[in-house]
């Protein structure tokens, strides 16, 4: 069934969009990432103009994150104060990112910047996560060698001023590192059109030392607000949010997210991280190949 999208001004198959939404929602529910880093390249791939793909992707991430965070709230796996601290940094970073995005658009190099940041960040995060999680899997599989987790990992973060107690996470740390992480992720989310969960989840585990149990819910909580901010900003500045496209993606996405969250619960956390790492690396390789391989058509057309 073909469907004409009013803002993208292309006609696409409705079931294809439902399917893309469903797959991305499934993964986002399972891994606790918003799924923006998947949905934006997939939309490019089926011929949605890049501006519309980025803006509408952000809107879809709002819906799938809400669907996911409510499931996490029921399990009491959301650290709201930590989420708010991350959000404060996130909004500041996002504002800066939107300014940089506008400068790059004026220079005509925004596609390159987006692709390069995809390759660099997905590559680094994917590799780090893969190596770490494989080590964890090996440790767990060794007879008698169950994962030993220290209650407190003291890092440089503990020496900074402005310490706050985060009860749900069981942390007593300075607010400066979470604000910095939030700002960095907010900046990337505006430039790359993603929620930033794939960077925030590892940052919360490895830099802040938060327990894996609350990381997914807390990152989803923060992502809702950053992507909501991004959606409205795009709607106002570039009129590029396609509500019809969003509705179809969301319909598939929210259902996928619920199924994904339940399957994610039944799987071991370290196995889940290996899978997420492989997925991140696959997207990185796909985007990287476009940069390196000779394109079939050297010219491209776009509207100014």
């Amino acid at each position, binding site marked *: *069934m*073909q*469907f*004409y999208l*009013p*803002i993208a*001004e*292309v*006609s696409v198959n409705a079931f294809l969009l439902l399917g893309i939404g469903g797959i991305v929602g499934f993964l986002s529910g399972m891994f606790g990432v918003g799924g923006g880093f998947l949905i934006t390249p997939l939309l490019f791939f089926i011929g949605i103009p890049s501006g519309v793909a980025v803006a509408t992707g952000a*809107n*879809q991430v*709002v*819906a*799938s*994150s*809400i*669907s996911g965070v*409510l*499931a996490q709230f*029921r399990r009491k796996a959301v650290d709201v104060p930590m989420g708010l601290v991350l959000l404060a940094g996130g909004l500041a970073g996002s504002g800066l990112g939107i300014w940089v995005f506008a400068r790059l658009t004026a220079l*005509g*190099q925004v*596609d*390159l910047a987006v692709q390069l940041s995809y390759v660099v960040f997905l590559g680094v995060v994917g590799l780090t996560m893969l190596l770490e999680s494989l080590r964890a899997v090996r440790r767990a599989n060794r007879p008698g060698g169950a994962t030993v987790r220290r209650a407190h990992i003291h890092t440089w973060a503990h020496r900074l001023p402005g310490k706050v107690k985060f009860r749900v996470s069981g942390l007593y740390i300075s607010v400066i590192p979470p604000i910095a992480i939030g700002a960095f992720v907010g900046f990337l989310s505006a430039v790359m059109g993603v929620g930033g969960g794939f960077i925030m989840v590892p940052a919360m585990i490895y830099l802040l030392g938060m327990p894996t149990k609350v990381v997914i819910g807390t990152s989803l909580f923060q992502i809702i607000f950053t992507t*909501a901010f991004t*959606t*409205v*900003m*795009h*709607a*106002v500045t570039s*009129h590029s*949010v*396609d*509500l*019809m496209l*969003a*509705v179809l993606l*969301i*319909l598939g996405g*929210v*259902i996928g*997210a*619920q199924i994904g969250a*339940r399957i994610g619960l039944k799987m071991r956390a370290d196995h889940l991280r290996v899978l997420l790492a492989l997925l991140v690396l696959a997207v990185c390789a796909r985007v990287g190949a*476009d*940069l*390196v*391989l*000779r*394109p079939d*058509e*050297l*010219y*491209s*057309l*776009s*509207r*100014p």
Partner: protein
Amino acid sequence: MLVRLALLALLALAAPAPAQDTAPERIVAGLSQSRVAITADFAGSKIMIYGAIAREAPAPDTGPMAVLVTVEGPGQKIVVRRKERHFGIWLNTANEVVQDVPSFYAAASTQTFGETLNLTDDLRHGITLNHLFSAEPGGENVAHVAAILRIRKNADHFRQVDYGVMLSEDTLFRADVDLPADLIEGDYLVRIFLTRDGTVVDSFERSIHVRKAGLERFFYRMAQDQPLRYGFLSLIVAVVAGWGASALFARLRW
């Protein structure tokens, strides 16, 4: 543009002036529809362009006659970018802005375009794809214009069909043009040319109004006119859908 004008002048000198004193032949034509509404399930539209050649005297014998039909979508400003390899990666380098590129163009003729149209009149009216829009003289622009033609032809947004117009009894003609599903809004210009021995003797113009309708129109206008409200509406849809699915699945408890 300069090149085109110079060529025109040159050809006008060389070619014999069209015979104006022959018995007039006029095109009388109609369209199967003059409005196209883009609704959510819009999947393209077929426009039938039909008509007849009206004559007050018997057909003149000033050479073989032909009918050419063109349909042209609204013009757009297009940025053409060329990729080049630098530091091992392919990046956009040479940018060129080309004004007034039709979003859609279809041309059809009763025989081949070479047989039915001479270069002078092709340049004057801009009928075949090669003379639809022109490159500035010199520089990279020529390659960029060629790229636009190539990309648009591959996407089936530019077409040129020999033998695409049916002509019977040298009087009645008909052409069917399929408009693609990814149309943009605007007025689509339909032109019909009658040629004798390659020279245009009469032409006829009509336009088709392509407009978004229903929900498509509502969302499009709101996104343009009330972007802030539209942005919040998008958010509300996302929140309701996300919360609704979560509540539904919680109730299902599986």
